[in-house]
């Protein structure tokens, strides 16, 4: 494989540098460079990629994925999860710690990092647990996790219920400069809830998970971020009131951030009318009013990061009674298309550079990753995409080991065409993976 790349004639959008121009992009030895030496130009030297009519973006970053290794490799492995990422245009992902064992020790982090280095075709970063075993009782060894290289702390999948423990964990994490991310769910209010509490839970007789349970923890996190002065990031925001709370807090300068997932702006809880467990996720799908407010929050800068919450589950695990099925859906391969379809094409809520900013520079800045930019000297993680590419989701074409997507059969516009990691093409739509 050539060590150099010449990406010709694309629309280069680099939100980190405010660039949106037609031109060429050069890569040498895994780094973005201003130009190639004369002897590497042309077809004999660098690999040439014709990007005419396409968009050249910094490699997309998803800070919220579940790759199920160690412990549940029948659902997904780091290798297959990474292939999903590449096929979705993502060059960097951040794994959640709710593995088995939980990623709450340097040894587990090291295992994941080694596995990622040896099997993943994209960059994989780790988060560590806030509390031991995600039990919400005792702090995990945060200093050791920081030393092991985690990029943030979270108990994702669970939420620390004890406010005292959470406060001390945030204070302690501050010392190590580790952002804290939180799955916002007050469990005495969500109780046994398996879907949004509202009209459809009333109709279907399913236990409701009220948005109040999210709002309360978002409010708690705002107060803790304000009190400690340390960033807290609210994951997968699903409710209108959470957005309003976050908006007000951010306007006051509180170091609080939030992310939104595609399913929470694409689907309402009415989709559950046939008890299809592919629509069961946590937090649950909510109402059109919630969707409208989340999109408003994305538009006005209240929500600054877009993520997938890629959560694979084996078909046999999902094919059970609704209340017994696990929460979560696949996300990486449909994420970009859904955000483009909804935010760009349907709602015209953001420009393409703004959307790409929320998938590149914003998450990179938040987690202090040296990525998310096409600056000279930056790692050559690049996504070439077509925002108008029309396609139909087919779950059987997924690179995941699982098939749990509610978007099977959906027609979408926008798709990654080529994914480049460290200067090497790892996947393109026409020829697939380059192992």
């Amino acid at each position: 494989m050539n060590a150099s790349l010449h990406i010709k004639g694309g629309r280069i959008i680099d939100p980190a540098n405010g660039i949106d121009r037609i031109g060429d992009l050069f890569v040498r030895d895994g780094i973005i460079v201003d130009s190639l030496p004369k002897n590497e130009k042309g077809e004999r030297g660098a690999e040439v990629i014709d990007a005419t009519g396409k968009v050249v973006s910094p490699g997309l970053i998803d800070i919220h994925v579940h790759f199920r290794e160690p412990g549940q490799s029948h659902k997904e492995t780091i290798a297959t999860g990474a292939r999903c990422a590449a096929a979705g245009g993502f060059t960097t992902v951040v794994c959640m710690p709710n593995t088995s064992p939980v990623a709450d020790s340097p040894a587990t982090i090291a295992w994941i990092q080694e596995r990622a280095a040896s099997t993943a075709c994209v960059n994989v970063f780790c988060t560590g647990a806030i509390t031991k075993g995600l039990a919400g009782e005792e702090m995990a060894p945060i200093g050791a996790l920081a030393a092991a290289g985690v990029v943030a702390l979270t108990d994702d999948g669970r939420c620390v219920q004890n406010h005292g423990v959470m406060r001390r964990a945030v204070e302690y994490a501050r010392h190590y400069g580790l952002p804290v991310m939180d799955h916002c769910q007050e469990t005495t209010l969500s109780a046994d809830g398996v879907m949004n509490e509202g009209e459809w839970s009333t109709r279907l007789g399913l236990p409701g998970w009220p948005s109040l349970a999210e709002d309360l923890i978002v409010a708690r996190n705002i107060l803790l971020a304000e009190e400690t002065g340390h960033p807290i990031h609210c994951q997968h925001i699903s409710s209108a009131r959470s957005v309003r709370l976050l908006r007000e807090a951010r306007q006051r300068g509180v170091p609080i951030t939030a992310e939104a997932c595609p399913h929470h702006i694409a689907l309402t809880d009415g989709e559950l009318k046939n008890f299809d467990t592919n629509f069961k996720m946590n937090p649950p799908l909510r109402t059109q009013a919630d969707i409208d407010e989340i999109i408003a929050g994305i538009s006005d800068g209240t929500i600054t990061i877009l993520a997938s919450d890629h959560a694979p589950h084996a078909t046999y695990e999902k094919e059970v009674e609704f209340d017994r099925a696990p929460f979560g859906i696949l996300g990486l391969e449909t994420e970009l298309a859904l955000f483009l379809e909804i935010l760009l094409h349907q709602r015209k809520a953001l420009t393409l550079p703004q959307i790409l900013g929320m998938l590149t520079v914003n998450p990179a800045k938040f987690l202090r990753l040296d990525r998310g930019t096409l600056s000279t000297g930056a790692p050559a993680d690049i996504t070439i995409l077509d925002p108008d590419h029309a396609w139909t989701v087919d779950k059987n074409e997924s690179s995941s080991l699982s098939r749990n997507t509610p978007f099977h059969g959906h027609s979408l516009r926008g798709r990654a065409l080529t994914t480049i990691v460290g200067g090497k093409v790892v996947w393109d739509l026409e020829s697939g993976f380059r192992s």
Partner: protein
Amino acid sequence: MTTHQWKHKDLCALADHTPDELITILDTAKAFKGVGERNLKKVPALRGKTLVNFFIEPSTRTRISFELAAMRLSADVINISASASSLEKGETLLDTARNLEALRADLIVIRHQSAGSARFLADRLNASVINAGDGAHEHPTQGLLDAFTIREKLGYIKGVHVAIVGDILFSRVARSNIQLLTKLGAEVTLVGPSTLVPATFACLGVKLVHSIDEVLEEVDVINLLRIQYERQRKEYFPGLGEYTARFGLTKKRAERIKPECLIMHPGPMNRGIEIDSDVADGRGSVILDQVTNGLAVRMAVLYLCSGGAPFAPVTPSATDSLS
């Protein structure tokens, strides 16, 4: 005179069906009720068919009612409970049901604690699936037998004012009743503490009232639901004594209802809690009629879902039968 065709293999939820389809079941049930009044209480409609009563959640009257209904239609019947099935060994519901189907079960009647479980099986099996109660979702045959009883006793459903009292939030009986009665033109008022009758129920086209005393004089039917105290955490209301004081149909309250008002209860009753014993056994109580009518309704459902042709309406037309 036309008879609406029944084209469904399953009965999972009354929410899925049109008023005409629901009337078809009621009309067919009316014809079947006569079977139970004969000396020879049996017809050959399901001869050679196999019905499995698959009751994952305990039940007495519903299971026996389905069993007897199937026997009266000459079907072969097998009863299975969770404790006597491979579910105990960790087998999934779907695998167990597929095994029943592999044994050539034609009809599977399922009761399960999970909402949506009947639909889940119906979508995956060729056998007919009849919902005998799925969590807090629906109990379609209970809704049908309640409507059948109202129609039988009062002669009509359209315009009847029905109060459903008690634990609405957790009640599959309430949801099926609401679906059927509102589709057939009845006025439905839900009565109970605001924790068990939350505001979201208004989306179903019903009135919500939080005091039984507000509706006693005006309703034509009072359907009292069992307080499932064992299933509720204590935050829903302070205690049984307070519940009875606020929402129980006591003898004193019963004196205020219209003389022709029907008193219904899906059973099992908590005498002295949601209903006084004297009221349960007194004038206006049709609680045992409901049990008898349940048999006819279930015969009709099993017959129709097996592909049986609907009986011609006893009343001149479906529309007339509503009023």
